[in-house]
């Protein structure tokens, strides 16, 4: 700030120096807060993108779970279908013996199908885990966002202090000038 004054007076010079000091301090503070704000915003974005990655991992887990469970169920269905083709409907003793074997294979196929549910649960748990990670990352992202907002508020406050100091200095200079003018006019 350079307001020219043809009547340099000690008080005005002192006021200017004080104002300059306050300007430097507030500029320094505003710079620090701006850096905090920038870092926090960067962290906020990074955490948001990390959450996105976890959501994509969750999607992969769901897809893998669907394929694994579905294919096991289809394999079980295939086993049951093959066993059904061997089923004897004649009612003879040999047929009953064959049907007992068929029942055994049918049971094996159904048990295999039961595995599909377990596999689905394993992948479902993995997906839930990834979602929990994503929520954690989002929470951290929000915290960084709040920190950035706080830094921005602090920066604005520092600027306000600087503005107030400038106004005060102007007022002092104005008064000083008016006083000198009055003295000169009387003389």
């Amino acid at each position, binding site marked *: 700030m350079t307001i020219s004054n043809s009547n340099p007076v000690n008080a005005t010079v002192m006021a200017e120096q004080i104002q300059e000091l306050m300007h430097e301090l507030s500029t320094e503070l505003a710079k620090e807060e701006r850096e905090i704000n920038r870092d926090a915003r960067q962290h906020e974005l990074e955490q948001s993108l990390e959450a996105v990655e976890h959501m994509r991992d969750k999607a992969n887990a769901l897809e893998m779970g*669907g394929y694994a469970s579905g294919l096991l169920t289809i394999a079980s269905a295939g086993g049951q279908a093959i066993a059904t083709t061997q089923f004897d409907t004649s009612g003879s003793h040999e047929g009953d013996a064959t049907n007992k074997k068929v029942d055994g294979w049918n049971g094996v196929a159904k048990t295999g199908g039961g595995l599909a549910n377990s596999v689905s649960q394993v992948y479902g748990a993995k997906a839930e885990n990834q979602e929990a990670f994503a929520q954690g990352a989002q929470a951290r992202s929000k915290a960084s966002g709040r920190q950035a907002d706080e830094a921005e508020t602090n920066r604005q406050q520092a600027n306000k202090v600087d503005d107030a100091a*400038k106004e005060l200095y102007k007022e002092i200079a104005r008064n000083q*000038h008016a006083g000198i003018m009055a003295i*000169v*006019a009387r003389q």
Partner: protein
Amino acid sequence: MNATPVNSASRVIIEEPPASTSGALTPDLVNILDVTSILFAMQSEQQHAQEAQHEADIRAHASEVRLALDQVRRAAEEARAQADESSFWGDFVSVAKTVGAVASVAAGVAGGLATGGLTVAGGLALAGALVSVCATPIAEAFGGDENAAFWIGIAGSAVSLGGGAAGILLGGTKEIATAGLRTAARYGEWVGRGVDAGAKGFEGYGEIRTGIAKADGTRAEADGMEARAHQRVSQRELDTLIGGLKELSQSFARAKDALIESQQQIGQSHHLLIATLGR
């Protein structure tokens, strides 16, 4: 700009015209007598250039925000569509499971009849109870409403009741199945097992499609989250730029006020000095 004072402290000769980015303000500085006036002109020019730059940045960021919002909207639509598809395939799996379960139990009942381990009355009671319990999924599988489910349930209960009553009247352990009925039951068991296997196959296919739809929905959700993250960043930068533009305007306004005030003070001093010297 290179300003050199000549003869008087307030008189200046401008060797080069001020570099103007906008060309909107090109004051003839040769005729300006005050340094404050030169500063005023410079300041105005700077203000114009900086404000133009800020406005261009604001427009660019506003465009980015609009694009990001568009992406968010598209991702939300995609997620909704995938949720609908996932729901459809989930229902499909549910129906296939129900059909498979009914067929499996029916095959079991038929098997019991075929081997003589179950009377016809017992088989009817069991089948009726099963139909009654599964009335709603059966109605849904055949496109029926709640009314249909109610009547299927009533019919199943009636069959179950009739079978139970017959069992009591004829004696619970009395074998009433004929050879023909046993053969029919064996075929029934065979069909039941086949239907169970087929339903399981459809169930597996439905599980795969459900998994794919859920995954695609989650991916769309992730895309939406990413677009929102970028939109938030662009929006904040836009807010900062708008705030900066306001601060810039205020700062220039203050500087102008200060320059005007200085000019006034210099003018007052000159007047007073002239008046004093005149005495």
